[in-house]
């Protein structure tokens, strides 16, 4: 059994996979379910001119925002800038390319790329700038725009648990973009909170089968909360 998917650190897990100008799909929504350790390893690697497909770009100074600070990102493919000041600043100043994708189109483009579907039609964005320059087609009297599948050089993903064969389980809304992002990379590296023994995951409860996963690391996650909202207990 020479073959193993389990690596000791994020740096090791990315060894040999990085090159300047590469494309990366990243899981996560806001700061929820983001591959914190792999992002730190990308910062440490100093790989540059990255094109990253991710719904958001973290926040100022955390998550993918760290790679904005170090100017390692050439282009983002995202649906939301939101309150990320440095993201907006780099985009408005022209330092950063930004390809806006509607959130569902981005998720479907990742899934399609992983599923061998090079193009699909959606009504999302028809009649808006999103459809500019794209082919459209009428189905049953309605206009749809052709969107393409995304195939990226690398996927970086955060899951809750993995077994050594790479079967993944996610937790609550931290699942989000992670499974589709995992499928669209030529190589998929996953960080988890816990690697559990083979056979300890119920085969009916696996969210993403190990075939999509090439390398796994276990580590500690900060899991920062972006908007802490609570209610008071009734007296």
């Amino acid at each position: 059994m020479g073959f193993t998917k389990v690596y000791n650190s994020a740096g090791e897990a990315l060894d040999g996979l990085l090159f300047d100008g590469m494309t990366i799909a990243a899981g996560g929504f806001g700061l929820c379910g983001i591959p914190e350790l792999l992002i730190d390893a990308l910062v440490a690697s100093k790989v540059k001119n990255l094109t990253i497909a991710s719904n958001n770009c973290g926040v100022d100074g955390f998550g993918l925002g760290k790679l904005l600070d170090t100017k390692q990102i050439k282009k983002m493919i995202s649906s939301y800038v939101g309150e990320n000041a440095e993201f907006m600043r780099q985009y408005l100043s022209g330092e950063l390319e930004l390809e806006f994708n509607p959130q569902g189109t981005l998720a479907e483009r990742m899934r399609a790329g992983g599923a061998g579907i090079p193009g699909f039609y959606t009504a999302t964005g028809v009649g808006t700038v999103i459809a500019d320059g794209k082919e459209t087609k009428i189905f049953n009297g309605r206009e749809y725009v052709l969107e393409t599948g995304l195939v990226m050089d690398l996927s970086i993903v955060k899951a809750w648990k993995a077994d050594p064969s790479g079967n993944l389980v996610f937790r609550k809304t931290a699942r989000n973009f992670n499974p589709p992002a995992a499928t669209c990379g030529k190589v998929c590296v996953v960080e988890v909170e816990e690697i559990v023994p083979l056979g300890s995951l119920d085969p009916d409860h696996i969210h993403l089968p190990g075939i999509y996963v090439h390398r796994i690391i276990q580590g500690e996650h900060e899991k920062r909360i972006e908007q802490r909202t609570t209610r008071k207990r009734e007296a």
Partner: protein
Amino acid sequence: MGWDRNQMAARAAQELQDGWYVNLGIGIPTLVVNYIPEGVNVTLQSENGMLGMGPFPYEGEEDPDLINAGKQTITELPQTAYFDSAQSFAMIRGGKIAMAILGAMEVSESGDLANWMIPGKLVKGMGGAMDLVAGVGRVVVVMDHTNKAGESKVLKACTLPLTGRSVVNRIITNMGVLDVVEGGLKLVELADGVTEAELRAATEATLVN
């Protein structure tokens, strides 16, 4: 004069029907959940991957793995199901959600909606809004009738980049309720203390009978 944010949310809540699956946008739409009528059982979808969104957690019970599309900490309910973003937008795009209640920067008389950017000034991003307006059964917009400068946000044509073309069914503002119909907007209801003349004066869009 007219409805405040909570009254607008309460009016929007009257749009909901028993058994419906609904997506609520960020801002005033979030408040709709506080006014769902007795006996009306709706399930809230959060497009980051959840059906059956519950209220905010009690202090100390926040879970970083459990947030809504506005990145706020929330809780689950007995009927909750989680799924990934591709599945989430499959159900949105596939028309499985009965209604979306969304905020807006501008709405036009043909139902065009603009709510994701102001060129050169504010780049928010469309998030899931373009998918929602293209996919859900019915789109209700909740917003102030005019901007801070007193200019109408209910226009003949939107000036900002669109989120969707001909997608809005009903507009609920602080001044009343308008439906998008053939030829323009139709007044459905006036807010408390608002006259038809006042609403017409604050509306750039064509009003039809």
